[in-house]
């Protein structure tokens, strides 16, 4: 079973971003390295939410920003291993929209529930499957190191 491994600093940064943008959704990328046990994340990168029309319940990272993030990751010898976003006043459970819009197979999608401005729970879901047709989210443990 895969697990998402990250430092407490990265974990805290993801959750703080969700509190910072509340009541809107935050979003960002996770940079790291793929291992046999799942992604080992070295850093997180904040991204802008380009869904300004419905930022409280939708997020989108512009492809141009994604290209810049990926280039920066390459310079550091890292890969985009996943993404994070928040669910203001909702659970840390993936939604049908999250699955429909998820296309990074083999990557981790981290969701933080932010209730009344406070991050309360963070879950990670691996986008498993080999194609768009059989993709699915699988809950994976988050291993936080000091």
């Amino acid at each position: 079973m895969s697990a998402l491994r990250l430092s407490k600093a990265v974990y805290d940064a993801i959750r703080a971003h969700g509190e910072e943008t509340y009541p809107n959704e935050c979003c960002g990328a996770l940079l790291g390295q793929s291992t046999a046990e799942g992604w080992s994340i070295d850093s997180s990168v904040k991204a802008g939410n380009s869904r300004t029309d419905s930022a409280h319940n939708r997020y989108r990272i512009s492809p141009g920003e994604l290209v810049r993030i990926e280039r920066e990751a390459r310079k550091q010898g890292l890969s985009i291993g996943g993404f994070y976003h928040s669910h203001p006043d909702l659970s840390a459970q993936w939604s049908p929209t999250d699955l429909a819009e998820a296309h990074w197979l083999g990557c981790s999608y981290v969701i933080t529930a932010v209730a009344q401005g406070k991050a309360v729970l963070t879950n990670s879901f691996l986008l498993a499957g080999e194609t768009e047709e059989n993709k699915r989210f699988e809950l994976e443990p988050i291993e936080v190191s000091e």
Partner: protein
Amino acid sequence: MIIYIPTPLRPFAAGKDAVEVAAVTVAGALDELTQVHPALRKHLFTSEGKVRAFVNLYLNEEDVRYLPAKEATAISANDTLSIIPSIAGGGPVAEARATMAPSIELNIIRRAALSRTETGK
């Protein structure tokens, strides 16, 4: 030119994060890429042969969709082509919440949200 392969497509490109091609257009570059790595084809193209809607192509800094010649745009050896699947999503809309699998944690958050609404804060 160099085509940068995003993380989810590397397993279908022999694990490579970049592939060099000698084509002279964007479409030609994609064709060459999928000839060398045929497993990529279904991830990049629809059954009608069009680039999938969620697949973004960036020629250097430019979104290929917005280039005048789109995929017929000429390329040179020093150009780079980035393949970037889109990233988006979000929480369920109000009417969809009732269909979500209930959980203790979800209920706690719902109560918090209701409380906020009731107090008008």
